[in-house]
Every structure is written in C-alpha cells, then in structure tokens.
C-alpha cells in the first residue's frame, strides 16, 4: 500500500502540486492575459499607426496628367510609398480639396501644390516622376522616338547587390530577443516572487512542518522551483506563440524558421536565469515568517533583476565594444543580455561558452548555498533569521 518515496518522487509530487495549483489560480489567468494584451499592443499598435503615415492622395490635373500619373505610380512602387491617384475635374477642384485636406498634393506644370508641407518620401516620388516626364518630353521635342526613350530609361535602373544579405534579418532577430528580454525581466521577477510567496505561505501556515516530517527540505525546495519553472515556461511559450503570430499577421515581420531562433535562445537562457533567481528567492523568503516582511527580504533580488534589465538595454543599444561583451557574460545578467547578442550574431562562440560556464557555476553554487540557507531558516518562526545563522543551522538539519 505504501512505500518510502525516493527523492525524485518527492520532488515530482511537490512540482506537480505547484503546477496544478497555480495553473488553476485566477491570478495566473489574469497575469497571462495582461501580458498577452501588452505584447499585442506593442507588436500591433506601431504597425496600425503607420498606416496613414506613408499613404498619400495625389491628383494630376494638368495636361501632362496621364504621363505623370504613370511615372508617379512606378516611382511610388519603387520607393514603397502608398500612392492613390484621385481624379479631379480641374485645378480649382484640386486646390479646394488640398485646402480641405482630402488631398495631400496635386501637380500641375512645374509646381506641386500642398497645404503646408510636403512629406519627403512623397517629394522624392513626385520630383522623380516629374523629371522623368519632362526629360522624355524634352527628348521627344529634340526628335528622338518616344519608345526609344522609354526603353532607354527602362534599362537605366540600378540592380541591387547586397553584401550582407542577412543584416536585416539579424537586426530583426536582435529586436525580437530584446523584446523577449523585456518580457523576461517581468517574468523573472514574477516567477521569483511566486517561489518566495510559496515559501512564506508554507512557513506562515506551518504546513512546512508537516511537509518536512515527510520529505527532505531540499526535495521540497527543488519541487517548488521546478513546478513553478515548468508553469512559467509554459506561460512564456504561449506568450511567444501569440506574439509571433500577431507580428506575422500584421506583417511586422516575415515569420520563418530563422525568427524562431531568438525565441529559442531567449527561453533557453531564461531557464538558467530563472533557476538562479528562484534559488535566491527561496533562500531569502525562508528567512522571514510573514508575507509583510517578504518585500523587504527580496529587495536585493529586485535590484539584481533591475540591473539585468538595464544591462539588456545597454547591450541592445551598444552592439559592439568591450563593455557589452563583458556585461553579457556576467551571470545572472547574462540570462537577459546574452541572447540579444547571440540573436544578432555578435557573440563569438567562446563568449557564449564562457557565459554558460559562469552561469552554470553560479547555479551550482546557489543550489548549495540557497538549499542550505533554506533548510536552516524555513522552520524558524518569528523574527527574520540572520543569514549566517541560517547557514550554520542548515548543516545540522536532516538532508
């Protein structure tokens, strides 16, 4: 009917409880929904705003209207400007419509008429088409056949040769990783706080005594960190899928396999950052007995997360240089900063390797230190347990 649990089974039971209990918690749904809403606003909103910015209503009422219109449409296509040609009866109507704002500009003869100013992208389109049309007309007047002129102009286009064809893509990937880092900063704080809150909840309800009479303290700690981590990772995957989907639907980025790379990097590094952060949170929380004291106990960790947050800005806006290189290798800051450099292709393999080694070293150290402080402090009710005292009594407690 019953038999002793192995350490691994105890961890699995605790982790499963953490996952199931929190996944059904209403606050979990709310926080997921809010994060997804923020992402959608960030991804979709700039794109929605930009509709209208590069879109122009133009009329060509003059005698050359037809030719100008054709040239302008061709130029607009090249310049990626959204140009709509509006039919007007005469110059008077065109002027009236510019005044009332339903027309951005009209071209007549050698003039372009606007209400106040002319957007530079539209100016380029209109000037190019005007000079093409007047050039053709001048050549025609000089006796050269119109078709010859047209074909000569047609072949005079520049071919595009890109020396770094992936540069654009790398920038996009870097940006995705940066947005990822911003989201992760919040999640790192959030999940770390869940761990801390869970520890204090068990302590203040004294259920920790019942639990520790059945399983070792380290199994309880490991199960809690893993269960909350698994839930956090699931939430992040969901958020990533929604964010990428929204970005692809609105055309902000072309979704392909290479865009999944930064997401993968960010999530991979997040797992490492989370483990380090969760261990520290658990140890800090085990020292206090009431939720009211939690804020105070975890302040240093919040500061650390903020340092990571600003470091990721620093690294994002300074692609090259020794500073960002070093910052991106220091754990646990590397968890947010390194994926940005990796996604952009700025990080040399040895830098990634060193960052990983340092991160794993930190985690290994934290598992030992945090595990012992947790063990030493989690049963001590009342005043905040001094760190050194928790460390000392941690050794004596049953492993």
């Amino acid at each position: 009917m019953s038999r002793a649990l192995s350490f691994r089974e105890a961890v699995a039971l605790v982790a499963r409880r953490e996952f199931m209990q929190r996944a059904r918690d209403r606050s979990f749904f709310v926080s997921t929904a809010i994060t997804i809403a923020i992402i959608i606003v960030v991804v979709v909103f700039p794109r929605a705003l930009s509709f209208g910015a590069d879109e122009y209503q133009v009329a060509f009422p003059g005698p050359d209207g037809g030719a100008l219109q054709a040239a302008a449409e061709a130029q607009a296509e090249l310049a990626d400007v959204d140009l709509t040609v509006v039919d007007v009866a005469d110059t008077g109507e065109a002027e009236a419509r510019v005044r009332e704002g339903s027309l951005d500009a009209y071209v007549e003869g050698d003039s372009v008429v606007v209400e106040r100013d002319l957007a530079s992208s539209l100016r380029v389109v209109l000037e190019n088409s005007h000079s093409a049309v007047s050039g053709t007309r001048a050549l025609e007047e000089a006796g050269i056949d119109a078709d010859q002129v047209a074909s000569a102009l047609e072949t005079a286009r520049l071919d595009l040769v890109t020396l770094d064809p992936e540069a654009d893509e790398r920038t996009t990937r870097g940006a995705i990783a940066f947005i990822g880092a911003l989201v992760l900063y919040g999640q790192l704080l959030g999940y770390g706080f869940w761990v801390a809150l869970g520890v204090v909840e068990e302590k203040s309800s004294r259920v920790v005594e019942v639990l520790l009479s059945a399983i070792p303290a380290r199994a309880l700690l490991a199960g809690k960190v893993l269960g909350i981590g698994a839930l956090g990772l699931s939430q992040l995957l969901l958020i990533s899928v929604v964010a990428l989907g929204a970005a692809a639907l609105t055309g902000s980025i072309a979704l392909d396999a290479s865009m999944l790379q930064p997401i993968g990097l960010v999530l991979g590094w997040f797992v490492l950052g989370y483990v380090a952060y969760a261990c520290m949170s658990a140890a800090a929380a085990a020292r206090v007995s009431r939720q009211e004291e939690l804020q105070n106990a975890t302040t240093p960790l919040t500061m650390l997360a903020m340092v990571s947050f600003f470091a990721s800005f620093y690294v994002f806006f300074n692609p090259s240089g020794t500073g960002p290189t070093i910052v991106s290798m220091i754990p646990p800051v590397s968890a947010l900063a390194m994926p940005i450099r990796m996604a952009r292709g700025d990080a040399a393999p040895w830098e990634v390797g060193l960052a990983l080694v340092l991160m794993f070293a930190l985690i290994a150290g934290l598992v030992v230190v945090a595990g012992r402080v947790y063990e030493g402090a989690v049963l001590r009710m009342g005043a905040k347990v001094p760190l050194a005292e928790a460390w000392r009594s941690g050794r004596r407690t049953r492993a």
Partner: protein
Amino acid sequence: MLELVGVSKRYGEVVALDDLHLTVRPGQMYGFVGTNGAGKTTAMRIVLGVLDADAGDVRWQGRPLDAGIRREFGYMPEERGLYPKMRLLEQLVFLARLRGTDAATATASASSLLERFGLAGRAGDRVEELSLGNQQRVQLAAALVHDPRVLVLDEPFSGLDPVGVDAMATVLRERVDGGAALVFSSHQLDLVERLCDAVGIIRAGTLVADGTVAELRGGSGSRRYRLSVDGPEGWADRLVAAVDGAAVLDHGPAGAPALIELPRDADDQVLLAAALRIGPVRQFAAAEPTLVEMFREVVSEHAEPEEEVAA
C-alpha cells in the same frame, strides 16, 4: 514502542531539552503536559525529524528513526499546518502521497476521513473557507490519512468545543485501540486525565513525572482527606494539632468540609478517631489529587525561575 533517550536541544544559549527520556507504547494514549516553553513542541519536532537533536536518540521498536520509519508517523503541528488555498480532498491526497501512499489508496482514505468528520460535502472547498473547528478536523484528518502507526499531535484539542473534543477523542481512541501509539500535548489537564493511559510532565526540558495518572498519585508523598465535623469554629486546627504530621490544606467555608493532608505512612484511622473526639463526623473521604493539583505540585517542587523558550 517509541522512545526518546537522553534527547537534548539548545537554541543558542537557551536549553530547550535537557536529557529527556520518554516512552510511548503502542495501544497507549500518552498525554504530554508542561508549562509554556517547557519543551513539548521541540520534543515533538525532534520525534518527527523536523528538527535535529543535539544529543540523544529517538527510537521506534528499538531502532533509531530514519525517513522510512517516520513515513508511518502522523503529525499535527501546534497551529494550523495546511495549505489555506488548497481544496480539502486534494490536500489530504497530496499529504498521504508524500508519505508514500499510492494515489488510489490515498483518495479512498481521504474520502472516508472527510465522511467521518462530516465534511464529505465540502471536499472541493478550500481550507480557508472552513470554520476554525472544521479546519482543526481537517488537520487531524491530514495526520491520519496515511494510516500511521505513531501519532504525534501538538495541542490537538485547543480551540474545539466539548462536542468537537469528544468526536476527536473517539477517533483517536479507535486508532489507539487499533494498535497505534499516540502522544499529544495539551494544557487542558482535565482532558488529559480523562483520556490518557499515561502522562508525562515536562519542566524546563526534563521529564519530572511519568506514568499512569494512578501511578503519579501513588508517587505523591502524601494523602488527602475531605473531612466535615460538627464542631466549634477552628475544629480543623485542633484536629491537626492532635495528629502527627497532619496539615490543613484548605479550611473551606463554614460548614463545608476541610481538606486535610497526612503523610504517606500515617494511619488514616487515627485521624478519624481524633475527629470523632471533637464532634460528630459528617463526612470522611479520601480526596484523590487531580492532575491539575499534581501538575502544580510537581512543577513547583522543581521551582526555578521560569524560562521562556521559543518552543
């Protein structure tokens, strides 16, 4: 049987337990009493392995405890000890599984315990939604759900109404009659006296009295008698003056019996004869000391300045 052998524990400068020896047998309900801070909770935590002793051993059936044996222990900490936001049935199943019970058995056992405590209809409620009395019942169910052979309960009866006390006592008695060993702490000494097969009194981390209530009485150095005599005022003082070693513990109000103490080896018939010489004796009865009286006596015998230990 469960044995604590020479267990000591210090918290920094404060001695919580000092060479504590204690034995609880299967089929025995053991009451653990002592002043606040005497070390009851510390002792229980050490038994459960939640704390480590600085010195001494805890043994079950002669073997030192390890995680495998402790799995068969049930524990109820002093105040609460449940996840406030977790649903009753899930919580009980989880706690049973932590002690190695398989999922099906755990579910069956948890359901039947909830049924037993009249909480079957609330299996899906969160603990925090229950009244304090009901939370206490769930707390006990959590200690019983894996069918433990040893039960260690810290203040299980505090905060329960008399009906709740009786219901809990009945459940515990069943387990003890089924062969479980039970040790519980309490400040309600009348309850301990009524329920327990054996009692230990702890003071400043040491057991100062141990045995059945009858044995504790037998160990007392004196006997007491309730005596009522139709005599002039001050008859009780005249009486004890006439009998060697006798003393008045309580004169009582006029017309009511007085409480007289005799040395253990004195003949109580001498006292009766002396009383008859004063006047007609209306009442003469041996007065058994209550546990409360013995507790006061034992604790004050070892009187030292009261130490307050975070127990």
